[in-house]
């Protein structure tokens, strides 16, 4: 892994609100600040509906940002002109969750992969075919398959096609939106290994969105835990698994089963009470306060901000405030 200190993406208090029936606001993402450095992989975990996909799509500019700013290589993506915005499309690519829905059923695999080359006018038209073959072989398919249609492939193969499509135009940053959760476990490992080897080969930066904690641990350098539209904790991958600070992260990590029946028996699980509140009327204070076993008065009224409590370990929880009267657990 090539770790430089160059920040490729800087998210500052990013929010995305949707208007829903009855003029209510659905706050899918509500104030996320995050720096992503070139060459690293940031894992984004959280349960269904916590806003991880929305955050990924904000970065791919599929949804408009309601508040805050997303800077890519020092430029706010809201202020891009036609040309730079076209360049952005080349540099930031996305891999989708559902390999069955993300490929146009009417196009051959070759034209799916070649589309980006056509749009960005990369390579001479005569060389494009060769490039498509190279990419196909790079992701473990063979060139004869370029003339086939998506419905002739299995789920894992389709996801490889999705990866090939994103790779074809040589992006710098890839948003992986749950790329393996629709696949078999055996295939998951293949795709993960493929992503890892491509990362070092092309010096890629990933945002890896998933709800599978083990997968995120395997692939990420840093992990961000998301809950109801905000980041709860952000730290290096080893630290967060060894020493989770936020009560939500603790509960989340305690839910990972251990493949040893002896240890599994003695494993202590933190069972959270209640359900995730609706993002239409999230709690005023800490979003987690309705389910947190350690919540106190301040949590109900004031939303905690993401603060560095240890070097490289940020957490958004009042329990870790230096002026807090409560004792950190």
């Amino acid at each position, binding site marked *: 892994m090539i770790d430089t200190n160059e920040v490729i993406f800087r998210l500052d208090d990013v929010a995305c609100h949707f208007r829903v029936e009855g003029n209510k606001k659905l706050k899918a993402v509500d104030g996320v600040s995050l720096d992503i450095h070139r060459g690293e992989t940031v894992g984004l975990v959280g349960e269904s509906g916590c806003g991880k996909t929305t955050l990924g799509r904000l970065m*791919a*500019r*599929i949804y408009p940002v309601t508040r805050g700013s997303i800077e890519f290589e020092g430029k706010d993506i809201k202020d891009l002109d036609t040309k730079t915005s*076209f360049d952005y*499309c*080349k540099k*930031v*690519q*996305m891999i*989708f*969750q*559902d390999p069955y*829905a*993300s*490929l*146009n*059923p*009417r*196009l*051959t695999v070759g034209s799916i992969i070649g*589309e*980006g080359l056509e*749009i*960005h006018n990369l390579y001479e038209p005569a060389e494009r075919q060769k490039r498509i073959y190279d990419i196909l072989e790079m992701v473990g398919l*063979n060139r*004869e398959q370029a*003339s*086939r*249609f998506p*419905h*002739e492939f299995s789920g894992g193969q389709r996801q490889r096609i*999705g990866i090939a*499509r994103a790779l074809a*135009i040589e992006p710098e940053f890839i948003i992986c939106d749950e790329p393996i959760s629709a696949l078999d476990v055996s295939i998951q490992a293949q795709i993960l290994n493929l992503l890892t080897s491509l990362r070092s080969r092309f010096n890629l930066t990933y945002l890896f969105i998933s709800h599978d904690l083990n997968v995120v641990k395997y692939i990420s350098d840093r992990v961000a835990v998301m809950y109801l539209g905000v980041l709860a904790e952000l730290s290096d991958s080893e630290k967060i698994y060894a020493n989770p600070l936020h009560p939500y992260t603790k509960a989340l990590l305690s839910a990972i089963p251990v493949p040893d029946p002896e240890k599994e028996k003695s494993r202590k699980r933190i069972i959270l009470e209640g359900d995730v509140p609706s993002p239409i009327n999230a709690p005023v204070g800490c979003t987690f306060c309705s389910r947190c076993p350690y919540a106190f008065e301040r949590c109900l009224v004031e939303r905690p901000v993401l603060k560095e409590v240890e070097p490289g370990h940020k957490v958004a929880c009042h329990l870790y405030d230096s002026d807090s009267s409560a004792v950190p657990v």
Partner: protein
Amino acid sequence: MKKKRSLPGLSPIAPPVDYGALVFAENDFEVVGTDIEKSMAMVRPSISYWRDAWRRLKMNKIAIACLIFIGIMAVGSVLMPLISPFTFREQHWDEVKLPMFTICTEPGAAGIGKLHIFGTDALGRDMWTRVWSGGQVSLFIGLMAAFTNFVLGMPYGLVSGFVGGRVDNVMMRIVEVINGIPYLIVVTLLMVVLPGGVTTIILAMAVVGWTGLARLVRGQVVSIKEQEYVIAAKTMGASRSRLIFRHIMPNTLSVVIVSLTMAIPGAIFTEAFLSFIGIGVQEPAASWGSLCQQAQSSVFMNTYLLLIPAAFICLTMLSLNLFGDALRNVLDPRMRK
């Protein structure tokens, strides 16, 4: 008594096997290896969506029978009036309301001595020629109705669905207004204002007929544009025209084709109905509907004059509907095996 059979494999005393003869030397076997060329050649050929659809349509015997019948109707309508010894407007005053399969004896007629296969009508015109020439009019109107539906409804639906928001709202309200006016009133009024004839019928049907397809296409576009492959193309920087013509439109086509196939029998029936109430095709031109209308005055004496064009309408509509159904089954992605 049943004889107790002993199974050879389970006999208590197994016959001794001489393994001594089965000694393998190392070079008894050789590695065949994997022949890359061969393994690639064995892969079944790639089939495109449309070829796959055709392959499965061929398996449906009823659909193929319908297709052949529609083909016969179309070819017959074009050719029969040309090769018939009689014309559709030629009147034989001595041969009024002849029964079927009568030989023509009209003095001075070009087709003297030839057979009136379906007999003649109240004005002594050859029914065989008139039914086929009526088919020309009816099928042409059906095709043109489908064509105008496509030309007007498809772009309207595409724009409405793709642009969305307020534009979509306004465009769909316009469709609802047009849809809200009873179809027959619009057609009847237009027929009153404009001179009767095939062009007017087509125009009248075009004015009101496209709304169904526009709604259908719009619905398709709204759902397809949220599909991940369209989003993927968008994040890749694809232009609007590329999104529409390469990703969205081809994926609406199957539904559109089915809808157009179903629109043809509807238009044929509407034309027959209009002609039947007397505001459709004008004399001496014939259509299946006007033939039925003319036959109703002598329905008890010469029933075949009504039954023949009615049968043509029914069978053609039945075939088109059955074929459209089969096409829907074949083109619907959820029916894929």
